[in-house]
């Protein structure tokens, strides 16, 4: 009973996390949501977990729950990776604006640089 409560609390946390991430990463959010909800059901219906485990060739129901937990962890890891990519894109936009704002025009004579700053409206966002 204690294990069931702990697992339910943890999986409920995953459900909330999946719901929160759903807009940013629809695929990862939906997968996490489905798997975590299924896992909560199986925690409270261990006989179904055993049946499902036997059908899937895993062996015991508890093993199935552990495997599901591993899959959820991997999905969370993937989501973190996607978040890092989004941040990299934001950093790229920032770096691009800095680079363009500091562009140095071809010098008419050697050593005479001329800064060329484009009009701000012309800098594309994103």
């Amino acid at each position: 009973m204690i294990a069931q409560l702990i697992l339910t609390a943890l999986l409920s946390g995953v459900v909330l996390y999946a719901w929160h991430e759903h807009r940013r990463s629809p695929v990862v959010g939906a997968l996490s949501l489905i798997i975590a909800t299924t896992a909560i059901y199986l925690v409270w219906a261990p006989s179904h977990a055993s049946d499902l485990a036997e059908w899937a060739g895993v062996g015991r129901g508890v093993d199935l729950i552990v495997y599901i937990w591993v899959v959820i962890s991997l999905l969370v890891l993937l989501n973190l990776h996607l978040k890092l990519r989004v941040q990299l894109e934001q950093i790229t936009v920032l770096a691009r604006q800095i680079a363009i704002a500091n562009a140095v025009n071809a010098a008419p004579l050697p050593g005479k640089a001329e800064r060329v700053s484009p009009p701000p409206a012309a800098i594309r966002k994103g």
Partner: protein
Amino acid sequence: MAKSVSQGRGGNTWIVIPAYNEEQTIAGVVADVRRNGHHVVVVDDGSADATADAAFRARATVVRHPFNLGQGAALQTGITFALSQGADFIVTFDADGQHRADEIATLLDALAFHGADFALGSRFLGRTTNIPTSRRLLLWAATWFTSATTGLELTDAHNGFRAMTRRGASHIRLRQNRMAHASEILDQIASSRLSYVEVPVTIEYSSYSLGKGQRSSAAIDILLDLCTRRLYQ
């Protein structure tokens, strides 16, 4: 008869050259391109060597990324900059000396003649020198994959030598910072229904350009980047 862009009647043309640690070749490349009278912007992608200095001395406009972001990011920076300078036509050109500056005119003329938004260089319609068999196979696989995923009929999907109109360039928004940008451009051409034409060009591989070029394993990175990009908005 279509007017010739390359003969100066077609407006303001900018050549975008992304460069990363290319101090050996960049001055020669810029000099070759400038001989045709076009504006040149070199995007120094956070080089550790004197690439920016060499480009500037060769009288290119230089835009420097504060740190290395990748060729795709550098191309987008160059395109954004050229658009902000009022470019009517933009040509992307490699910094390692494997493209021929005299063929810029061919690409620009193809835009005008066909009324296309993009003129995509094709080494397989044109000529390649010293291309290794492994590279040829890799490019064939990339072209097959891109044609299958975008529906575009192409002979060379990963050629960095291409020309575009202002309208075409305005539709391009590269989010793949690294090498997957070549597929991303084609994907955006297909999804925005922009018109394109393939143009025969020459790619001259040298030991230097082959040393700087992509490894075969980069194909896996490109595939992963393209797949991962579809997982988030």
